[in-house]
């Protein structure tokens, strides 16, 4: 995907136009993935058209709480973000890296599975999620070694962003400067406008690929009022953030305080269940599993998502490096908000709030950072 500056002059789609967009993408061989309601949550899955969208539903999110509620309108994208992120498509939770065979002569050979990189079209990608993809691009694509399978899936992907019309209770993208408005990293971006009998989507192209697809979808030019209304949507959302995080000096704050008593405090609540790392759209840690079949002649190596909250994660001969919950929580949060900056030139946090919502005991990382900062400020003022 090439980076283009978003058009400022917008176009407008109606719901039939949005349906046509799904069809055009499918005609071009994309697997169209978007939000849908399942198991009382809004999740991302392959969907055939607009009828699968969670029309008229929103999500209520607080630390450790997530619930769907009916909206008063029939908005298609009237929710914040759910437990899924797009990483499960670009960086699959389980992927066979290669298989090995041991012949009758005992000699081992290795074969890489034939990979035709999936061609995904993602519908409804939020600004924070665009930033999360950019973060993972740096992790998987810019080191001395490149994850070629990720890179192939990523460069094939067509991205339709949606500007958030309301913020969730655990959102803090404004603090992380990652939203709520999609400004880069998309092929097309939608702003949903709903009121009276009108149900429209302001649409802008962010890439040449986006422009070409848009040409094949019936659309009109947005009126000045519609363009104004779309801008107002993002402004209103920005003012509704459920959380905020003071990021001033956050790298030093965390790196310089590995012995802060707050780590023990949070560890007393943390279940080390790894939920936060599974729902995080940037967490990239993986492990490998080696299997062999009953003949003992065939083996395979499978990469799976892993979490720094497990004991196995840090195991070396003799035991785990991080046995205490406090050291595992410290590793996660210090990596996410501080070490990531040294490693990849960006924070690992995009302010989506998933780790807060999906923590079974409602640990809120914005609160944990604030507590560490407050204790130090108090120490200084004494």
């Amino acid at each position: 995907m090439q980076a283009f500056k978003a058009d400022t002059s917008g176009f407008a789609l109606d719901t039939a136009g949005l349906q046509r967009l799904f069809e055009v993408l499918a005609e071009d061989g994309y697997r169209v993935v978007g939000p849908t309601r399942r198991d009382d949550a809004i999740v991302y899955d392959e969907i055939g058209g607009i009828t699968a969208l969670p029309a008229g539903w929103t999500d209520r999110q607080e630390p450790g709480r997530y619930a769907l509620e009916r909206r008063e309108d029939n908005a298609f994208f009237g929710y914040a973000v759910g437990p899924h992120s797009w990483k499960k498509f670009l960086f699959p939770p389980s992927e066979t890296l290669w298989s090995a065979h041991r012949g009758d002569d005992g000699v081992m050979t290795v074969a890489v599975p034939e990979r035709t990189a999936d061609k995904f079209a993602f519908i409804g990608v939020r600004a924070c999620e665009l930033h999360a993809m950019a973060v993972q691009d740096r992790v998987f694509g810019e080191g001395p070694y490149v994850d070629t399978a990720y890179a192939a899936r990523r460069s094939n992907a067509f991205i339709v962003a949606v500007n958030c019309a309301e913020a969730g209770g655990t959102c803090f993208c404004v603090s992380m400067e990652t939203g709520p408005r999609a400004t880069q990293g998309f092929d097309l971006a939608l702003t949903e406008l709903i009121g009276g009998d009108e149900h429209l989507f302001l649409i802008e192209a962010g890439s040449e690929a986006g422009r070409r697809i848009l040409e094949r979808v019936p659309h009109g030019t947005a009126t000045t009022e519609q363009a104004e209304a779309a801008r107002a949507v993002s402004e209103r959302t920005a003012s509704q953030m459920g959380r905020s995080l003071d990021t001033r000096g956050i790298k030093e704050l965390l790196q310089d305080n590995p012995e802060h008593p707050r780590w023990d405090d949070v560890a007393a609540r943390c279940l080390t269940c790894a939920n936060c790392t599974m729902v995080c759209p940037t967490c990239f840690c993986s492990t490998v599993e080696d299997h062999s079949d009953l003949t003992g002649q065939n083996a395979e190596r499978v990469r799976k998502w892993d979490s720094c909250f497990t004991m196995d994660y840090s195991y070396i001969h003799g035991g785990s490096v991080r046995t205490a919950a406090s050291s595992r929580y410290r590793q996660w949060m210090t990596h996410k908000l501080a070490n990531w900056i040294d490693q990849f030139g960006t924070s690992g946090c995009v302010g989506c709030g998933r780790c807060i919502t999906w923590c079974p005991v409602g640990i809120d990382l914005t609160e944990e950072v604030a507590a560490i900062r407050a204790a130090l400020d108090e120490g200084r003022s004494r």
Partner: protein
Amino acid sequence: MRADIAKDPFVPEIYRVGSVRRELADAVTLELEPVSGTRPDFRPGQFNMLYAFGVGEVAISMSVGASEGTGFVHTVRNAGAVSGALARLEPGATLGVRGPFGTGWPVAEAEGRDVLIVAGGLGLAPLRPAIQEVLARRERFGRVTILVGCRSPSDILYQHDLEQWKQRLDVNVEVTVDHAGTDWHGNVGFVTTLIPRSPFDPDNAIAMVCGPEVMMRFAASGLQKAGMPAGNIYLSMERNMKCAIGLCGHCQFGPAFICKDGPVLPLERIAGLLAVQEI
């Protein structure tokens, strides 16, 4: 983003075990030759990921320098499922090899200076290629000291090499054990106790340290007490490692990835982290 890398860094090359030499009760040295093609070049201190068929992969440093032989030499201690499977390999068996990975010992930077090698237990294995390189061009270095600490006399690695190095007049070799029977006539005590009586100029020396983390912490502190600046003390760190290419996250040590920023790191970069429990 670079999507044009032809070689998949996750896929191992196949090597064949040429010979197996028993070093200790629980450690062997494997000589590996590529089944096809040639072995890539590498620097002392770098490591490979060795794959035992169907069992898994572990990070093991090369224990003989690249200038000797056409393959890789690895000393493996049976410490778990994978290293155990590797240690049981017999001549002719095949295994997977990915590498070389990571940073090496600062052998070139040590030219013109005194060299201090401090090894604890199996830590001598990753240091041996550096020692070989220094001794092969001995005239380029100042005084050379090799300090080796082991738990007991039966844990001393590469006794044959140690004897040869000891016979040289231009190398100072000291071996110490933590505890020993009455038949041991050498040093007893931790390897750090040998530092104060070793001949080196703290302002013009490079120290290369490898061993258990606690031993390296004490050695680093002993070297600093002797006056060495942290920038001239190098440690080879160890963490869990799954990919060795900076993608799996496991080997993080603060902001450093041990697989690509290490394993060999200057103390000045990690001194703060070394002091923190469970980092």
